[in-house]
């Protein structure tokens, strides 16, 4: 490790780190928000489930580099525009989370769903106030996978010149110099760890009933 190099480039690395953080976080959030209604749709209308899941699976198989390159011509953005990265990763998150949300809703006991109907809930209210809260643990588990995979996918965009931690890998590769590569890996792991912890804590806070200890 060349600590001198790191010291000299601290400011640059920090700005890449910040860029990396929001480039990974924003698509995770957007993807989840889009996946909630789509997943609910796939769950409620069983005929759409297979189609939606297949389309999502196909979407997920498009190589990220190809998507980064193609998106500007579809969106009319410039190749260096970080929006391309956000859109691409949102699509990946969406592809992953549609299935997770549909399956999470399916994991809610049918009796609870029927019970909500019998009490006089309208479908949307039942979905939002009964079924979704109960699906949080499963959705949270899926979101952790999506968030962590976004952290690593962002770095691919370095090839296009979008500034973030991926630049460290490019630099290290071009200079045949290991310090930036190691720093990049460590920082990516830290970012992934932070995301994972935040989601974990959010799920915990949103599901107090799962930790209720039996008083029997």
């Amino acid at each position, binding site marked *: 490790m060349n600590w001198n190099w790191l010291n000299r480039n601290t400011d640059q690395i920090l700005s890449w780190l910040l860029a990396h953080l929001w480039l990974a976080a924003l698509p995770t959030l957007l993807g989840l928000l889009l996946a909630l209604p789509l997943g609910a749709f796939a769950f409620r209308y069983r005929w759409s489930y297979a189609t939606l899941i297949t389309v999502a699976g196909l979407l997920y198989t498009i190589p990220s580099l190809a998507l980064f390159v193609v998106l500007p011509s579809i969106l009319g953005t410039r190749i260096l525009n970080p929006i391309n990265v956000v859109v691409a990763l949102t699509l990946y998150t969406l592809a992953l989370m549609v299935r997770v949300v549909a399956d999470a809703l399916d994991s809610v006991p049918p*009796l*609870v769903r*029927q*019970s*909500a*109907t*019998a*009490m*006089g*809930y*309208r479908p949307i*209210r039942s979905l939002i106030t*009964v079924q979704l*809260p*109960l699906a949080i643990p499963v959705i949270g588990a899926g979101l952790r996978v999506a968030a962590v995979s976004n952290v690593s996918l962002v770095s691919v965009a370095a090839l296009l010149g979008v500034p973030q931690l991926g630049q460290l890998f490019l630099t290290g590769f071009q200079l045949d110099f290991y310090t930036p590569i190691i720093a990049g890996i460590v920082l990516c792991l830290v970012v992934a760890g932070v995301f994972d912890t935040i989601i974990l804590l959010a799920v915990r806070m949103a*599901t*107090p*009933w799962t930790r*209720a*200890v*039996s*008083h*029997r």
Partner: protein
Amino acid sequence: MINFENVSKIFGDGDHRTAAVEDLTIEIPTGKITVFVGPSGCGKTTSLRMINRMIEPTSGTVLIDGVDTRSIDAPKLRRGIGYVIQNAGLFPHRTVLDNIATVPVLEGQSRKAARATAAELLERVGLPESMGRRYPAQLSGGQQQRVGVARALAADPPVMLMDEPFSAVDPVVRAQLQDEFTRLQAELGKTIVFVTHDIDEAVKLGDAIAVFAVGGRLAQYATPAEVLSHPADDFVADFVGRDRGYRALSFTVAGNLPVHDEPTLRLGSPAEQNLMPPDAPSGEPYWVLVVDDARQPRGWVDARRVAGGRPVDLADLVLGGSLVGPQSSLRTALDAALSSPSGRGVAIDADGRVIGTVAARDVLDAIEAARLASGAAADQPTVAGVRAGDADQAAAAVPS
């Protein structure tokens, strides 16, 4: 009053059509418990769910107090009908109090006001108020079921639907819940439709029983006594079971049974004199009834075990079975005699104190007398077996 008029429900289509309910016409009286009973696949739950439109009929009409349920917005209709689902179906993510407050909150009541009402209801179903802050997973099955009943009662609906509400708890808790439910209904007088596959539960709780046969056919609709004494067809007879004659005894109060004096021994005190008569057969236990300080029965003891003037303790006791109280049925009286080690059933007064014992022979005589009385009341020669409608007539003929 709830009316089914020629209601059918067909599931599936094309070659896979199956009738869950076939041309059901039935009138369910206001303020009574009507039990839908039958084996699985007989359409009893489907029928129940057609009342609050969780299932829509394929044809026919369901009316509540003369109003076609289809003319009411389904969620609104359901909020006006209490529903107790199997296994309680509580919302795991809401506290007990918020579970009970569900319908009032849906109806636009403030959460605070709804919780206050919920706390009262909690007490009403026999749970401490402190339980309101717990989550359903922290409650036993029986407690969850009580919360389920409280939730159904929260908006004070005139009609309650109960779908096998007590089937998931053990027999002891089930009997408790049934008794409390009977007590609650006596206070509330709701129009209740109760679904069960258990004929004993149906007989115990129902003011009227609708027996469903597989394929959604209504095989018989009558009082429990009528179903037991006069099954409409082979299906009902078979479903009700072989010991229906014995079960029918539940409907006759054992008011005029002779009660015999029974010497008793106090728990914890020694026998003052030799309890055994000199001519007691040797080698057989000689049973003496043991009571506590309040004269409540505790069990039976073999006099030989405590012959040396030793005080009786709990370990000496052989527990008896049912007790015959002032309101007990002939079935209970017979069971008390049969389940007691001495063959003598313990009779108690309203405060639970021993007043003597009843003998199986006397119960059999009372059954015979009740049978004759019911035959005479109908001005008909008696036939073998117990007659229709015997319960009311026999109870009236027997001074109790």
